[in-house]
């Protein structure tokens, strides 16, 4: 997978770059937001490793810009800020994962692997979660081998959750994805759609992380 590492501390950046590269990924490293924006325009990265505290701005702004443009690429935040509020902010901005410095390179490898399993260069990603099979390329969902039909909104939510299987997706992030359909978003819109999805996929399919968001369950 092609990975963009945005980290301004050279010694840390270098070690992370080497380690992830050793796992078989292609890693480009930049130390500034403007360089990152330029790189994102020219290369189709599968994953972004994002430091929040950069010399020319906040990493979260870049993440928000990406999500606003409908970019669903995986983003793992690498930060020295460990406060709950920072985490919730990162999650709401659309981060897939959040690692606090100092972290173990092997831990980072594991998280990158988890994300790459979901996205990882597979041209026809087929996700199996329990008895549910999701084909993100053909937009087909099967439960116990039976195909299930989903509305466009339900699919949008499932796709978002499937891209971040095992990771938390905030309610704000789902609402944002639903805005693309142009209709009004009521305070309970997300709950209504998730509830319908559960009826179709089974109660255990989607886990509610109270006050934070949802996660695709283990089925």
């Amino acid at each position, binding site marked *: 997978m092609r990975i963009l590492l945005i980290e301004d501390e050279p*010694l840390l950046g270098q070690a992370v770059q080497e380690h992830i590269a050793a796992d078989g990924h292609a890693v480009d490293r930049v130390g500034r937001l403007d360089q990152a924006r330029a790189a994102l325009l020219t290369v189709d990265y599968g994953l972004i490793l994002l430091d929040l505290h950069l010399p020319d701005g906040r990493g979260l702004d870049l993440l928000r810009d990406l999500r606003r443009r409908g970019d669903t690429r995986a983003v793992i935040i690498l930060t*020295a800020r460990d*406060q*709950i509020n920072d*985490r919730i902010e990162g999650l709401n901005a659309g981060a897939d994962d959040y690692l606090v*410095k100092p972290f173990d390179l092997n831990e980072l490898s*594991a998280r990158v692997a988890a994300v790459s399993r979901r996205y990882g260069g597979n041209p026809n990603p087929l996700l199996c979660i329990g008895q549910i099979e999701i084909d993100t390329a053909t937009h087909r969902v099967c439960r116990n081998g039976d195909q299930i039909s989903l509305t466009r909104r339900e699919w949008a939510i499932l796709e978002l959750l499937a891209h971040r299987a095992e990771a938390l997706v905030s309610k704000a992030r789902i609402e944002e994805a639903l805005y693309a359909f142009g209709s009004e978003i009521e305070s309970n819109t997300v709950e209504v759609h998730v509830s319908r999805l559960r009826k179709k996929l089974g109660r255990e399919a989607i886990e509610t992380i*109270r006050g934070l968001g949802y996660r695709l369950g283990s089925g």
Partner: protein
Amino acid sequence: MPSWSLSRRLILVLTGSLTGLWLLATLASTLVVYHEISEVFDSALQETAQRILPLALSELDHPRDDDDDDDDHERERSIGDGLSYREHEEHLVYQIRDRSGRVLLRSHDAQSSPFPIPLSSGFAAADGWRYYTETALDTNQFIQVAERLDSRIKTVTEILSWLIAPLLLLVPLAAGTIFWTVRRSLQTIGAVREAIVSRSGVNLNSIPDTDLPTELRPIVRDVNRLLERLARALENERDFAANSAHELRTPVAAALAQSQRLEVDLIDAPQQARAAQITSILRRLGKLVERLLQLARVDSGIALSREPLDLMPVLTLVIDEFSYAAGNRDRIRFDDRGHKTLTARTDRDAIGIALRNVIENALLYGAKNRPIEIWVDQARSIHVANEATVIETSRLAKLTQRFQRGEDGANGSGLGLAIADTIMQQSGGSLSLHSPAIGRDSGFEVVLHLQ
């Protein structure tokens, strides 16, 4: 020094001095009145003596016929003898005496023996009487007019009682007015005191100084300046702890990452073990830095700000954080026991730190491969229990002290439970440790009691 009350002192001193001064003024006026009355009475005595003397002398010079009797030669007489007067009590009595002191003439009530004073002109006093002696120079005879001093004293006493009587009403009235005024004025001090007392780490707002008396305004302004400085100092301390987190963590992260790469580079080389040691030390350093930063933030009163918050997201986020880490997925078991929300007045980050420390403690010291159970009870307390050998009560009590490590040689910083304890105290709640776990024979349980 024993404490004293300003209002009590003001009321006592003001009422006391007012009463004292009033009494002094009354005493002074009494003395003046007595002096003036004495002058008037003396003047009356003198005038009477001077008026009676010629009458008495003429009476002695021209005795009436019925008095011209040898048998009665020695009989004392008085002016107007023979005339009929109604019997009456005499306030003034007199005697006419000759040079030898013999009484020649006297009023009805005057004593028959000579007055006990010498025959010299002027005023004199003896035995409760006031005397005035006048001399008829040509006849060598004297008149002595006497009056009881009682009557003067009675008059002065009467005046005095009229002066004092209103005081019996006025003093309590004045005391009441003073009491009311002092209490009312000091109510402002009470209000300011309440306002100062209500200030704490949570509330450092300045105290309004409008509508305050000029005596109090500078004090309140000084207190406000102090509060402002305190708020700024606390804010700086919190900012410092938060900012230094970034400054300290980044180099540690770089060193750890570099040393891990070195380990990989030195694979199969004899120096690899040394690189692994450095990595291990850096991991510990990383943990220690994190704990010390948490400690700094806790000491700057991070948990003092108490907004009502739903802590369920914090709890799920922290549990999620640990569950997600390798190896813990099946070890941490959370049961919300039907609680949809968990509202408490505290700080989100502070509770996050407390929970992280307690859970990490359970993971570090709990029996390996045994679950860590987390649940919320009816009283909305958070329980974190792990399997462990029973800890003695004396050791248990020490576990919330700083730099107290658990046994089993685990690599704890010795700060986790101390930090969690301080946070719970600052939040107005508490942290309790139980070993064996509540209702079990073994294990260790931490309960975070929320406010």
